[in-house]
């Protein structure tokens, strides 16, 4: 008896602390001397080299084997996105245009800078950043255009048609397609695709090829969010409506909020301010087939202000994309290298590791590039899925849960609230309510917990705080404790 007590004490004290660092390693990529590494875009070439573009206009190639950098192109205007076409060709989004960079003579340096499209306006306002491109399965490219900020003026000369009806408001669209996602077909035609964006600094596709675009808390956005974007839809930031075909000659801000609200398509995933995201960036699909851990097929989203990424737990309810987000890589770090903030761009390397390009750009953030590597074979205890049921939620985990912790109702605490859709900047959490969990049922394989809750209402966020869930007889602790489900539509 004494011996077994001693043994269990020994085991307990010898068991690992079980933190994120047991599963993921972080390393800083050495950056070239003299580079101000505000990273606007990263992508991998077919040959495994990393291409990155930077604020001061450089496009550089990094060979992970030799850890050396080489200049590919220079002189671009604040490039904020790059897509590899081949080992000799990249498409880069810079402020004034989408540009194809080609090394035609094979000397390793781009000599051809071809305009793919510049069919959008520029007022000269600094906030008119241009993001993308991403490419769908059919070869269409998508770019997204930031609105301008009334924190600064516009230039005397603008490019494109000027419309003063789009000049009102905190963030404005006085030249064409500001606040839009544009599609460029393989034959080079530009099509205005979707409107209603404020600061859409991130685009990506999920495993089913659905396009997602992130947007940043501010006027008309009570909190930051991720939209499932489809052609022709309007996503809620009004100023871009002036560039919608057939929209009447009015200032969209004169429309009643109720009207705008009825016109808009809401986000699939809200990222509550203050703890999930302040400035979400690029969504990226984990297409590594498990080489990056147990989350294959899910989306990760970058974040500027917090030292974590977001992980998306999708749930399709009656054709409506919605679901939850959790912080990912929270408190991650290894060998004295913590996960830093400013994670503006993400790219999976051919070896399944995740590269994170940092930027600050006059806001919060950081510089440089970090690489995240999964330690193969080790499975963290984490939430894998959150599905809405008619009476509550079904939570699925990466590992079989310890029964006692899984069935303890005190380990599931829900709050629910919503953010106001209004012209003001951001929103408080409105109508915050505690939602009681009435039962927790563990599945036979002990991986899924079905929770019944006292009440479910649509158009609210259900914030779940998980307690001390364990697996492996207490050896592993749940990693993600804060889970926010965006309930647009009830499952009835």
């Amino acid at each position, binding site marked *: 008896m004494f011996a077994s007590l001693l043994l269990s004490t020994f085991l307990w004290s010898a068991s690992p602390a079980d933190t994120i660092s047991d599963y993921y390693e972080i390393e800083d990529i050495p950056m070239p001397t003299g580079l101000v590494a505000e990273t606007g875009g990263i992508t991998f070439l077919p040959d495994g080299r990393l291409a990155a573009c930077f604020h001061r206009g450089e496009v550089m190639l990094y060979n992970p084997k030799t850890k050396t950098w080489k200049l590919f192109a220079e002189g671009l205007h604040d490039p904020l996105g790059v897509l590899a076409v081949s080992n000799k060709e990249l498409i880069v989004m810079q402020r004034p245009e989408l*540009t194809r960079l080609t090394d035609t003579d094979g000397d390793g340096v781009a000599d051809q800078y071809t305009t793919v499209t510049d069919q959008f306006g520029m*007022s000269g306002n*600094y906030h008119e950043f241009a993001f993308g491109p991403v490419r769908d399965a059919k070869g269409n490219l998508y770019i997204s255009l930031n609105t301008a900020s009334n924190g600064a003026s516009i230039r005397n000369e603008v490019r494109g048609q000027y419309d003063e009806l789009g000049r009102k408001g905190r963030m404005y669209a006085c030249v064409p397609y500001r606040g839009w996602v544009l599609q460029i077909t393989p034959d080079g035609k530009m099509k205005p695709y979707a409107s209603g964006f404020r600061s859409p600094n991130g685009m990506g596709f999920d495993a089913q090829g659905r396009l997602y675009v992130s947007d940043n808390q501010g006027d008309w956005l009570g909190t930051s969010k991720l939209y499932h974007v489809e052609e022709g839809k309007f996503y809620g930031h009004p100023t871009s409506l002036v560039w919608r075909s057939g929209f009447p000659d009015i200032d969209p801000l004169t429309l009643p909020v109720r009207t705008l609200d009825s016109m808009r398509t809401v986000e699939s995933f809200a990222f509550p301010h203050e703890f999930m995201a302040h400035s979400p960036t690029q969504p990226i699909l984990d297409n590594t087939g498990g080489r990056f851990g147990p989350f294959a097929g899910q989306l990760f989203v970058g974040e500027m202000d917090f030292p974590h990424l977001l992980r998306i737990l999708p749930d399709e309810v009656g054709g409506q994309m919605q679901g939850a987000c959790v912080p990912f890589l929270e408190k991650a770090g290894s060998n004295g290298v913590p996960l830093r903030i400013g994670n503006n761009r993400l790219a999976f390397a051919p070896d399944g590791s995740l590269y994170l390009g940092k930027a600050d750009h006059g806001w919060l953030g950081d510089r440089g590039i970090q690489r995240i590597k999964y330690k193969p074979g080790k499975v963290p205890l984490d939430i894998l899925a959150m599905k809405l049921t008619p009476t509550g939620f079904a939570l699925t985990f990466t590992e079989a849960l310890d029964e006692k912790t899984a069935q303890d109702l005190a380990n599931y605490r829900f709050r629910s609230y919503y953010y106001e859709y209004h012209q003001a900047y951001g929103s408080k959490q409105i109508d915050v309510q505690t939602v009681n969990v009435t039962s927790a049922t563990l599945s036979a394989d002990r991986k899924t917990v079905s929770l019944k809750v006292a009440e479910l209402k649509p158009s609210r966020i259900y914030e779940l705080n998980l307690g001390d869930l364990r697996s492996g007889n207490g050896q592993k602790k749940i990693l993600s404790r804060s889970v926010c489900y965006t309930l647009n539509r009830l499952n009835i």
Partner: protein
Amino acid sequence: MHKLLGLLTFFMAVQTVRAQRDTTITLSAIGGLKFNQTRVIIKPNTRLKLVLQNKDDMAHNLVVTRPNSRFRVVEFALALGDKGPAQHHVPVMDEVLAHTVSVEPGNTDSLHVTLPEGSYPFVCTYPGHGSLMYGIIYATNEPKRLPPVAEDMNIPNPNRTAETAHANHRATTSGHPYTMKLPAVYRTFMPDCGPAAIAVGLPGPDGGQSYVFDAGQCRLRYAWSGGFVDNTEQWDGKGQRLTKVVGEIYYRDKGRFPWRIGNGEPQPHFKGYRLVNRYPEFHYVVNGVDFRELIKPLPTKRGLIRAFTLTPSKQDVTFLADAQPGIELKSSVGRFENGVLRLPAGTRQFTLTIETK
């Protein structure tokens, strides 16, 4: 007794001063997590009204702390977590002397505080802002004894950006991980041009020559000699400020869009450029005619040689150029008549020389 007398005198002095001084100072929150002023110097015991005007595009607050308490207050503010917004990100603690509420972009709030002699930090305690966005209030009768701004440890280092550039010797001149080599191209915001500007620096004696090509309008806008560009301000922060011309502008095209194809209204479209020994050759299309334009410096004096290649057109192709004092325009084909150059039918290549007289 002496001590007491001293205290008493001090107290009376304070009272007198307090009765006399009221002052209002306005601080602006500006882009890049900065206050427009980082040092405020006042007489001790002034009744100070500090106004925070938020000219940035995100919310800020303003907190005045006890001496040497900025770090602690910022730490406590951060620790508020999701309770932060409800209390304007201001922790309840003795070190906080006064504060504003959260000030949304475009709005204003103020605080009142009376400070005895000393150095009082002010700071925005929004999460993450506190390490960059701060300054100091000196309540002093001897402002001359304050440290020079460049050596003042109480204010953010104004040379942060410059330091990064100076971290490496090679980068000092170029701001890049390589030495600047002419010809060179910068797409950037240039003065007196549309927002889609391309600045090109050309090699030559005395700093060489440079020009700006407007990619929005597909035309040369102006040229200068004696240097290329200064990107320091354009690169700082969010990129609102313009790149500066280094040198002296000697030529400006102030006229209309120069090309006419037949009688139609010209509709230029920019198609990009290719680099030929680092010289950009611009490609643009005007009403179905492809133009390629490569600009080189005159070898002997201030001036540019514009070499054009164009695809055939059944319509007349003309180039309009208003006469400019001090500038001579020469074409390798045809002749300017009243500011109009009509290209001979079938012209596929020609040069236009801009020469200073």
